[in-house]
Structures are given as C-alpha cells and as structure tokens.
C-alpha cells in the first residue's frame, strides 16, 4: 500500500549556548494508510522532536531542520508556507499531546475549541459545527455532551480532557493522527479507556496513527509496527511481534530486559542498561549506543552502522553485529 507519510533523512538541531544540539540525526520511516506505528525511546531520543517536525510546531530559532524531507500525501511539508501548513494542521493531521491541561486553551469553552477547526477548515456554519461537535463528544465517550459543550477545560478531569482533545484532533477526519505520549499523564485504568477509544476510532475511520511513547506495554497493545529511537536515530524497526520476540538491536534487548513484568515470577534482580544516554551536543562519532553496549566491538567506536535488514520481514537494525563480517569475528 502507498505510504501517506514518508520521512526521509530528517536532521533537526537546536542552537544552544554550548553549540548545536543534534536532536534528530537522520531519521527515515514511513506510515501506510490505516496503519498504527509506534515510536518508542527514552527522553532525549528525538521521538517528540520528530513528531513536532512533522507538524512544524518547533519554534525556529532555536530549532532548524538541517536536512531531509517530510512527504505527506505527495507534498513536502517542509516546503509549505505557514499558511498552507495551517490547513494541514488539524485538517489532514491531528495531534494529541501528553498534557491535556497545557494544550487546551483555558479561556475557551470545550465546544468553542472543537468547533473552531470545523468552521475554519470545513466551512461549516456555527449550528452545523455545534451538531458535529456534540456528535464528536458522544463518540469519544463524554457523557452529557450538551452541558459539557459549554464548559471550560478546568471543569474536566484528566481523562475527560484527553477525550476532548481526541475529539478536537478527530474533528476534521484527519488522515493521520499523531499522539505524543497520550496516556502518560493518566492513571492506568483511565489509560485503558483512552487506548481502547483510539483503537476503535482507528478501526472505524481507517486513520493512520503515530503513537509516541516510552511504555512498551502500550505499544504491544496498540500498534502494528514499532520504531525504536536512541540518541536521535532510528536503531531498530519491525513488526511488534519481531520487536518483542526477536529484538535484534542490543538497546531494544536491554530495554525489554530492564523492565519487570507483571506476568513473570519475581526474585531475580533487574538487568539494567548501565550508563546514561549520549550528549547530543557532542554526539558520538560511531554507534550512539556503543558506550552502554555490552556487545560493543572496536568498529562501533568510530564507525556509525547503517540501518540494515535483519531477521523478520521488514525488520531493520542499526548495529554492526548484523554485518556479515561480525559473525566471522564472533565465530
């Protein structure tokens, strides 16, 4: 199937006092129609910067795109004017943020915030927009939509606010929904509600989803394909089955090993990944994970490996261990 989004060799940096923070360093991936992909990684891995670059939400300065293209339905989003971009945001791509309290406008009613996009992008009149907004509130499971329509964000609980944000993001039937840690600020029982809602909506409307998260459990529940980021780069991609069952990059393996699991007997100490992520002000010359990797070889220090096909179908990993020569060395 034709991808609706293709990110090619994206480099995004920030100008900081000490120099240039290279937050995203050569990211490639694509999203097919109706597909849910997850981008997982720790803080500073570049996952949110990637998402915000797609929406062109990063303030510039200090941020700037050094290189790369973001093709969305045939157009390079990086070349659009701010005005053209405004019609992409909200209409073609919807976004859900981590903290619904800071991303909703506290001075506008929820109803106003949902109808704003409908009036602007769909050319609806106020009455039609209100009808559609009430329908959306019902769709995302907010009881008493008539009352809720006229209320402000502070009248909503955390879970309800996140539902309202999903209603806003979906109001214009976007082809792509970017959800940046949508449930991180919520409790687990509320998280389960929101994830189920997003999954239902994806199945019903065929919306593509990019889910950005650090929680591998959420990924296993929600997504088809997984992209693992580390130090501003994609280090592994694959179907969720391959990523969880046959992870090929030492970082992915380490991440899965370091988490206690509810379904496993306890007693064994956890196996942590030692050290800390690299400083992207001075990114390592070789593999970004090299300094923390137990399987690092000499080549890893100075030479950055390519993202190359490994193991399962469509699975790729950025690691020298998968280079044909590495096997000879090990053997």
């Amino acid at each position, binding site marked *: 199937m034709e991808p609706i989004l293709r990110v090619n060799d994206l480099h995004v940096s920030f100008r900081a006092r000490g120099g240039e923070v290279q937050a995203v360093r050569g990211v490639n991936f694509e999203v097919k129609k109706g597909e849910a992909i997850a981008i997982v990684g720790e803080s500073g891995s570049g996952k949110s910067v990637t998402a915000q670059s797609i929406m062109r939400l990063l303030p510039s300065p200090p941020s700037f795109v050094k290189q790369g293209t973001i093709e969305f339905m045939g157009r390079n989003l990086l070349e659009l004017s701010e005005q053209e971009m405004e019609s992409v945001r909200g209409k073609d791509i919807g976004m859900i943020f981590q903290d619904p309290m800071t991303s909703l406008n506290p001075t506008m009613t929820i109803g106003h915030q949902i109808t704003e996009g409908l009036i602007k992008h769909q050319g609806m009149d106020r009455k039609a927009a209100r009808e559609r907004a009430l329908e959306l509130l019902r769709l995302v499971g907010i009881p008493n939509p008539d009352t809720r329509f006229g209320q402000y964000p502070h009248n909503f609980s955390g879970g309800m606010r996140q539902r309202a944000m999903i209603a806003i993001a979906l109001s214009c039937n976007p082809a792509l929904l970017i959800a940046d840690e949508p449930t991180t600020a919520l409790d*687990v029982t509320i998280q389960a*509600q929101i994830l189920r809602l997003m999954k239902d909506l994806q199945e019903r409307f065929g919306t593509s989803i990019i889910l950005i998260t650090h929680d*591998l459990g959420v990924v*296993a*529940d929600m997504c088809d394909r997984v992209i693992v980021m580390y130090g501003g780069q994609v280090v592994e991609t694959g179907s969720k089955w391959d990523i969880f069952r046959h992870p090929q990059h030492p970082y992915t393996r*380490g*991440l899965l090993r370091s*988490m*206690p699991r509810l379904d496993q007997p306890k007693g064994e100490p956890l196996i942590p990944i030692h050290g*800390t992520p690299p400083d992207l002000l001075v990114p390592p010359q070789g593999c970004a994970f090299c300094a923390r990797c137990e399987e690092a070889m000499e080549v890893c220090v100075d030479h950055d490996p390519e993202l190359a096909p490994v193991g399962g179908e469509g699975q790729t990993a950025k690691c020298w261990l998968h280079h044909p020569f590495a096997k000879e060395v090990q053997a």
Partner: protein
Amino acid sequence: MSVSTVTKTENGFRPTGASGGPLLEVDRLSKFFPVGGGQTLKAVNDLSLTVAKGETLGVVGESGCGKSTAGRTIMRLYEPTAGETRFEGRNIYKLKGAELKKLRREMAMIFQDPYASLNPRFNITDIIAEPLDIHGIAGSSKERKRKVEELLELVGLRPEHANRYPHEFSGGQRQRIGIARALAVRPKFIVCDEPISALDVSIQAQVVNLLQELQKSLGLTYLFIAHDLSMVKHISDRVAVMYLGKMVELAESSELYANPKHPYTQALLSAIPIPDPQIEAQKERIVLSGDLPSPINPPSGCPFRTRCPHATEKCAAEAPEFREVKDGHWAACHYA
C-alpha cells in the same frame, strides 16, 4: 486490628524484629484537609497496616487515592486527623523535642522528582551533609567530607562528584544523590514516594537494584509508594492497594497479583499493558467506566461501588469491612 506479623518471602519466613513486634504499625490513621465551604477532603481514611523489620511494603493506587498523603502522615510531615502510627512501639504523634528529633533520624524519605527535591544552590556535599549538620553528627570538617564520600560511594557515585551542583547530574544520578541524603542519618525506615516514576525506563532498573542492594546490606525497611504495578510487584514483599483514601486490599505480593480479590485490584491489574503482543492479544481487559469520584464527597458504602461491575444495593448501604479473606490476604469487599 493486626495484620500478619510474620511475612513470607522468597527466603522463607521473616521474623518481625527482635521484640517480635513490627517496626511500624499504622492504626486507624486518618488525614483530612479542609477545602473551604465547610467541606473536608478525606485523603486518608481509617488506614491500618504494619510493616515488619526488613520488609518492603508496596502501596499502589491511582492519583488522588491518598498514597502519598499516607506516606507523609506516617513520616509525621503532616499531623494526623485521627489514629496512631507506632514506630518501634512508640506513638510518633506524641513525641516532642529531643525524642522527636531522634525519631527524625530513624525515618527518611526519598522523593519522586529528583529535579525539585535537591536545592540547586547547594553543592552535593552540602545537600548530603545537611541532615548530618542538623543532627549535629557531622563531626569535624574532615569527618564530614569523609562521610559524604562514603555515602556517594554507597550509592554508586564517585567522590569527585562531591563539589558539583545538581544541574550537572542526570535524573538517575540525582535520584542517587537523594538516596545518599536519605541514608546520611542511618535511618531504619525509608518512605520511597514514587522514587523512579520520573526516570527513564533504562535508568529505573539501576535505581531499583540500588534500593534492593542497600536494603540487604543495611537492613532497611521500605514503604514503597508507586503507581507502576509491575515495579511494585518486583520490589515488594507485600502490597497494599488504596482507593479513595481507603485500603481495599493487602496481600503478599505474588498472591495479590495471582489472586486479586477486590474488583478494583482486578481491574487495575488487567489495565496494565504488558510488553508482549501475544498476551495483549489474548487478554480480557476489564475497562472501568467513569472517573475516580471526588474524595471530598466520596460515595456512600463502598467507595468503589460507582465504578464496580459487580456492585449491588448492599454496597451502597454498607461500607465493607477490611477483613482477612484468606491467610494473610485482606480485602474490603462484601463479595471477596
């Protein structure tokens, strides 16, 4: 009410201290906050539990369930509205002056946010040595320096870190500094309030392993407050589940996870996504409807009844008693 005074662990039975009594007994503890308009927020409502010496008791629950307030009241950072907390047999709310100050050396706390809990204008030596200075046990400046270096080494940091400032450290390292500071006065009991929630996944395991090593080598007792149930299961001997200021279930940790009795615990456990697509595909998830009710005006009877899939009229009329439903397994549900 007494909850089992002997705890079963992987290593067999663990006695509860030399005197046979538990290290900490919380007896019908309540903490209410006035919120104006004559209303009160019942953050902790009639909580009872015991913690044996050398044990880790996990406390889980969602935001607003009162777990942090419970931890702080047990530390006497808050004065209770009712009830007692006995530490080695003494009611801590009755202590005054020198006795209270002595108690302060026996209990310590590790906080959630390693960015907010360290004074940015103090260097690491002063942060770690502050409790020593307050209690007048720092000794000469040479001794003070040596003690700080020992503590840094204990938590896996290097002595040369002593002269740096908090902003020079990562989240995981800051949490280690917070732990060193908590250990400075050689406490017996530590309340860990979400000590790893602000850390990245790959760093969480480092800190949890450190806490467990320290417990073993120093014989510490932990009250481990968290919302990450997988981590709580991993670290705790027993786990208490709280909902709207009340304890709804308490059991040995593998028993609680294998055999939850309270419908809230069942829903909570089923809501946790497990990083395994096979299990996720097969899992029947209990999705609770609705939000957490306000602790200002909690529902009558059982606090969970408004979201409980099994609630009956009895649940609205009568508050269920917290009772032992099985050996060492307690639950507050009419139908458990």
